[in-house]
């Protein structure tokens, strides 16, 4: 049964009764049937100088900015009130039972604690906080004092829940109520008293420095850094006449003279006070340009007079005085860039003056660049001494700091999120990290602001925080994730609720992030400077500006923002004005807030704890991403099988006899490997001894048939070493195998390494491959080899040192083959790591962390060979040598059909030959992909094989570079390696002496292969076209084919290609253009058309030329071509056609 208001009032003191009245008014406004504790709380919070609010301020959790928390409190109270059912308006809603019970409880309480009552009274008298509650209380003891009224209301479970939702704990508030602050200063203001440290670069009293140096206050002082420096020069004994050098020198000079004439000479030492500036710049100018000597003479005379006076006063004991003679821009002495003779007289005059009045005369001038001065001093070599000049570099002028600079906006950008973190207190011992907390906090604040702004504007759910978390250490990211979960909950709500909930969530999130950041530095600091006063920052004096600032930014929101702020404006603005704004925006929404918000609000209070407890201790773990695939850069089998896979994927439906055969082929081999690895894999390769030699040798032989000797010694070495390691199984036993491959045949070495990885560790994945020379190599773009290396470098090493990369890879794959190419070109650090690794069995990275390399096989390669072996491969003159093949480029190959009459020189030639064909020819023709017509599945298979060859060789059926370039490349490489390391040879020798086995490779027989290929091609050609038509193969094409053959894993791949692709192309050319002995067929590289790895089918481009072309163009339009290509492979192919050239052709008779 509710109690009438009047009855309740009788139990209360005057003040409490006023609060009750307020509560009743609240209930009436909201048309509630009864006045409850919640109404009372609402009223108590809103009355001016509210005790409850004050207590809350003291009790609030330090983790949140107070404004924020009060907003949250108001919000949650408002929401709770909204939930009460409204009824028809009652004049005075009677007091609810629960509230009445609270009043009764407080009466009892008051009776029970007379002493605390007295204490309280004492305090309230002292500090005037409780607004003279005293008098009325003494009158009637039974009347409930406001404090006890509040205390018992806080006991109400509904009320404590509401407070809890806002992050307050009722018990804390109660405690704060019972123990009011003892300070005389009103506690509400004490927090804002201390200057906001983050706004200025001054320090506390300890440092003795005073002031609030606003960044741009320097203008007001009237001098800048330049003046100070000029002053410094002038104080000196010799070289005291500053000559300002620099583009801004004139401005600086002007600034200096102006401030001197204005009498501001604070930047000058005491001795120099009272200097007079005399500027003869104008006069000098007139003198130089017009020969007008009069004025100058006058000025000089005047100056002499002053100087006389000065010197006289010195005699009389006067300290100051002196003349600064400003001769202005040195350029003024030049007339059209030449120093005229009349200038010499002026210079002499000044020199004379300087001699006489050296102590009292300063010359000052400016010059734009030092070169002008040089010219001047060339003419007057002694000028520096005569004029006592000092060249002073001037790098900037202060003027640019003037003007358009809004202070408030700058302020805004670094207003920290809240005043809850301790400020740096000890200036003398700066702690690294402490300051981070401040900036980070700004940062968080800004992030938060930005997110909220984004949400408010667009209502989009994209969270900047997620992006931002990229930049944060991983343990911070946790928080972001946590809160975004909370956001998700919020997202399910609708409309404004969702909006405000989100804002709250965001606040919380950034609070969290911020708090985490502060935790560490704060603790750190406590440990180190326990005595340092920790003054929490709360306020900044610039609120007004900030508010304006933000309001001008967003006027539409502003309108709704301010009214709702009004109840709390008496409370000084805390620094997070932005938050306030957002909060108050929330308040606008309050009326429509539904129950859901509660959940969010609760989350707001609870989640921080969760997050804190779930804090991930692993700090700063940068994610490392490496492309493992790059371990096998060339056409190793893994690559091939990868390619196969992708091909299979593409051609799912086109599996024909050839591809099947091919698959079977690789399956066989991989089956073998699987077998061998199955026994080794489990036991980490340790048991692999019997039959080792044979099985290794067999696999290696298959891969690199041409290096039989090397294969033999590698297999021997590996099997022997493993056996010996296997027999001693002690812990200290060395298990790493060091091999060195010397000599040429890069591909062979690499292939052996990858085969070893496969044999020993089960897969080519276990090959860690690094080319130590690739980092600094000038590379030709598009070359088959180089471009891979370049990519490899980019992806692998960016941001890492080589040794770090290796160490990281080893960590990932503790059982693997490390393949280091060109070890002679290793940089210092890698060498160091290798040295240590070979001695200790542990590979150190650049941070000194070591990783064991037991069970690893380390292969280093070098093209450098010792002694006579070098001669061995140089003595044979070769047409195709390794370096040239390595320069092969991935260009397309074209067949060009020409007429013999075009080129007389060719007329007698029949048969096939390899020549150098001008590259220019290539671009002049229309390209046509062959096989465009009659696409049958069987043919497709064949084409695929061709592709496969290309694939296997990593898109290598393409072109190379001109021979000259190759040579250059070679030279470049040589000079590079020369400059790289002077002492590399010595080191290499030492290093090589420690490896377990050196294996010498012999050069790949490119010439032999070339002959074979030429034979093959010509037989193909003769078969399809006929022997009377001459065929010319460009050298570059040859190089490319050789490269492909070298790289391709499968035997016969090139032969296949020749037969299936080239042969067919010839046939088609023949069929279409009826080649006769008058024609010349050329196989050329299509320069610049790079074979795309994704579209290797481009390699078969055909180029038809001359008489055939018009017909060709008529027959097939572009569109048809495109369609044909599309059909063929689902790929749009690039068609090169020079239309202008076509026109030319068509006009031909």
């Amino acid at each position, binding site marked *: 049964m509710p109690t009438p208001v009047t009855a309740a009032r009788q139990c209360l003191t005057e003040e409490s009764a006023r609060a009750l009245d307020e509560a009743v008014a609240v209930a009436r406004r909201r048309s509630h049937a009864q006045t409850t504790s919640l109404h009372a709380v609402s009223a108590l919070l809103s009355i001016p100088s509210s005790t409850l609010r004050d207590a809350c301020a003291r009790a609030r959790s330090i983790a949140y900015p107070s404004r924020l928390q009060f907003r949250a409190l108001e919000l949650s109270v408002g929401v709770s009130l909204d939930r009460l059912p409204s009824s028809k308006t009652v004049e005075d809603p009677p007091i609810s039972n629960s509230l009445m019970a609270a009043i009764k409880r407080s009466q009892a309480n008051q009776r029970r604690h007379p002493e605390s009552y007295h204490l309280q009274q004492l305090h309230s008298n002292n500090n005037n906080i409780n607004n003279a509650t005293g008098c009325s209380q003494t009158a009637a003891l039974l009347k409930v004092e406001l404090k006890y009224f509040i205390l018992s209301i806080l006991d109400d479970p509904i009320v404590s829940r509401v407070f809890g939702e806002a992050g307050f704990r009722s018990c804390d508030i109660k405690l704060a109520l019972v123990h009011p602050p003892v300070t005389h200063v009103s506690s509400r203001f004490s927090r804002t008293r201390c200057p906001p440290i983050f706004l200025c670069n001054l320090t506390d009293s300890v440092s003795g420095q005073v002031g609030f140096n606003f960044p741009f206050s320097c203008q007001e002082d009237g001098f800048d850094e330049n003046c100070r420096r000029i002053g410094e020069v002038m104080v000196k004994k010799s070289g005291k006449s500053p000559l300002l050098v620099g583009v801004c020198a004139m401005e600086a000079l002007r600034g200096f003279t102006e401030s001197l004439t204005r009498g501001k000479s604070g930047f000058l030492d005491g001795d120099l006070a009272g200097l007079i500036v005399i500027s003869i710049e104008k006069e000098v100018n007139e003198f130089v340009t017009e020969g007008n000597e009069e004025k100058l003479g006058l000025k000089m005379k005047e100056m002499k007079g002053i100087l006389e006076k000065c010197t006289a006063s010195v005699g009389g004991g006067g300290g100051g005085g002196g003349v600064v003679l400003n001769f202005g821009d040195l350029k003024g002495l030049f007339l059209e860039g030449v120093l005229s003779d009349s200038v010499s007289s002026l210079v002499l005059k000044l020199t004379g003056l300087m001699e006489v009045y050296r102590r009292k005369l300063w010359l000052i001038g400016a010059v734009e660049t030092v070169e002008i001065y040089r010219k001047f001093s060339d003419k007057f070599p002694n000028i520096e001494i005569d004029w006592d000049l000092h060249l002073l570099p001037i790098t900037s002028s202060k003027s640019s700091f003037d003007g358009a600079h809004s202070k408030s906006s700058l302020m805004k*950008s670094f207003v920290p999120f809240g005043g809850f973190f301790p400020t740096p207190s000890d200036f003398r011992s700066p702690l690294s990290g402490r300051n981070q907390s401040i*900036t980070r906090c700004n940062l968080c604040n800004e992030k938060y602001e930005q997110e909220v702004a984004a949400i408010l504007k667009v209502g989009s759910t994209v969270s900047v925080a997620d992006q931002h978390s*990229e*930049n944060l250490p991983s343990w911070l990211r946790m928080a972001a994730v946590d809160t975004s979960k909370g956001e998700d909950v919020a997202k399910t709500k609708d409309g404004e609720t969702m909006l405000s909930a989100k804002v709250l969530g965001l606040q919380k999130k950034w609070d969290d992030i911020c708090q985490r950041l502060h935790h560490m530095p704060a603790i750190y600091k406590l440990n180190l400077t326990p005595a340092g006063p920790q003054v929490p920052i709360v306020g900044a004096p610039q609120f007004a500006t900030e508010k304006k600032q933000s309001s001008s930014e967003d006027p539409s929101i502003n309108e709704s923002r301010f009214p709702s702020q009004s109840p709390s404006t008496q409370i000084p603005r805390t620094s997070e004005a932005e938050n306030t704004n957002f909060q108050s925006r929330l308040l606008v929404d309050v009326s429509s807030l539904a129950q859901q918000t509660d959940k969010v609000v609760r989350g707001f209070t609870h989640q921080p704890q969760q997050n804190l407890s779930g804090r991930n201790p692993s700090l700063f773990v940068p994610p490392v991403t490496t492309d493992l695939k790059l371990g096998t850069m060339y056409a190793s089998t893994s690559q091939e099988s990868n390619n196969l896979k992708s091909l299979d994927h593409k051609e799912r439906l086109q599996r024909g006899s050839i591809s099947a055969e091919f698959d079977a082929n690789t399956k066989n081999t991989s089956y073998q490997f699987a077998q061998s690895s199955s026994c080794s894999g489990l036991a980490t390769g340790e048991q692999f001894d019997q039959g080792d030699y044979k099985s290794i040798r067999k696999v290696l032989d298959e891969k690199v048939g041409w290096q039989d000797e090397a294969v033999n010694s590698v297999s021997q070495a590996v099997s022997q070493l493993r056996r010996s390691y296997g027999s001693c199984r002690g812990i200290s036993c060395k298990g790493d195998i060091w091999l060195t491959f010397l000599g040429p045949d890069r591909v062979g070495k690499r292939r052996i390494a990858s085969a070893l990885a496969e044999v020993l560790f089960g897969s080519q994945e276990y090959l860690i491959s690094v080319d130590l020379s690739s980092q600094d190599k000038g590379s030709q773009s598009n070359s088959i080899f180089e471009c891979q290396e370049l990519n490899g470098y980019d992806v692998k090493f960016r941001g890492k040192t080589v040794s770090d990369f290796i160490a990281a890879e080893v960590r990932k794959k503790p059982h693997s083959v490390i393949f280091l190419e060109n070890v002679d070109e290793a940089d210092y650090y890698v060498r160091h790591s290798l040295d240590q690794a070979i001695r200790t069995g542990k590979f150190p990275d650049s941070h000194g962390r070591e990783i064991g390399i037991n069970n690893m096989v380390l292969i280093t390669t070098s093209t450098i060979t010792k002694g006579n072996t070098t001669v061995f491969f140089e003595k044979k003159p070769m047409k195709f040598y390794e370096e040239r093949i390595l320069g092969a480029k991935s260009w397309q190959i074209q067949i060009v059909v020409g007429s013999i009459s075009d080129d007389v020189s060719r007329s007698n030639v029949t048969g096939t030959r390899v020549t150098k064909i001008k590259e220019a020819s290539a671009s002049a023709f229309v390209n046509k992909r062959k096989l465009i017509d009659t696409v049958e599945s069987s043919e497709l298979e064949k084409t695929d094989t061709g592709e496969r060859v290309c694939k296997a060789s990593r898109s290598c059926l393409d072109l190379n570079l001109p021979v000259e370039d190759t040579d250059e490349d070679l030279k470049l490489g040589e000079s590079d390696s020369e400059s790289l390391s002077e002492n590399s040879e010595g080191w290499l020798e030492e290093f090589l002496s420690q490896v377990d086995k050196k294996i010498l490779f012999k050069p790949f027989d490119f010439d032999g292969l070339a002959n074979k290929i030429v034979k093959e091609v010509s037989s193909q050609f003769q078969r399809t076209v006929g022997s009377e038509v001459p065929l010319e193969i460009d050298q570059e094409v040859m190089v490319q084919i050789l490269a492909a053959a070298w790289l391709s894993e499968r035997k016969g791949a090139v032969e296949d290609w020749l037969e299936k692709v080239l042969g067919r192309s010839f046939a088609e050319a023949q069929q279409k253009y009826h080649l006769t002995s008058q024609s010349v067929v050329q196989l050329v590289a299509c320069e610049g058309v790079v074979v795309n790895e994704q579209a290797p089918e481009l390699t078969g481009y055909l180029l038809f030329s001359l008489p055939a072309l018009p017909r060709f163009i008529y027959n097939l339009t572009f569109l048809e071509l495109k369609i044909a290509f599309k059909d063929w492979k689902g790929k749009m192919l690039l068609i090169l056609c020079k239309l202008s050239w076509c026109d030319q052709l068509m006009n031909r008779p």
Partner: protein
Amino acid sequence: MGNILLEALNVRVVGSAEKILVLGHGFGTDQSVWQRIVPLFTPDYRIILYDLVCAGSVNPDYFDFRRYTTLDAYVDDLLNILDALGVDLCAYVGHSVSAMIGILASIRRPELFSKLILIGASPSFLNDKDYHGGFEQGEIEKVFSAMEANYKAWVNGFAPLAVGADVPTAVREFSRTLFNMRPDISLFVSRTVFNTDLRGVLGMVRVPCCVVQTAKDVSIPASVAEYLRTHLGGRTTIEILKTEGHLPHMTAPALLAQVLRRALSHHSEF
């Protein structure tokens, strides 16, 4: 004084070799930017690392807005550090703003420096009549107002741009150090840098220099390196790194290290 300075600017001396190498970091970073370079040189050099006063790792209280209006104050700091450490000859590697500082320091104390290696250096970022610095005044003002308006957004946009190369760790690292700077200081320093014009004084440098520039750098046009070469007073060489971005020491340390080594070994020939 010396000690306070050394402490305030987090001066570190790494390595014990005889030759001294000073590494100066650029705008928006701190000495940690050299972490991938330092280990490569510790065996041969004693490396002096320090933070510019504007770096995020330095107590912002030390940043005196009146003092650091020009680079000369930074030069003072550098020279004071070297004096406090008793350095009488060193090779100096400076990146970006530190390159400018190195130039000025070598003008003031030429005997102190055996070699300057200037990474991503520019005498002036502003375009002029016959000089292409890469920025127009108007553009810069826009940048400044962007920084003012929303520092965070600016950093997020600027960091990947400056790093250039696609190295997420470097972008992250650079953003971190950039964020560490107090926005007002950051803005102030960038104003200072953009107001700086060293063109007139380059001729006063007498120390041999090596200008290191990446093939593509958003803030430095390629012509600037050539300008530096022709105008620097000392014997000057150019090294173009085959990588991208303004921060090769973060994105391609191995590449840069080799160039540095080459440049440093050259100076001993003179």
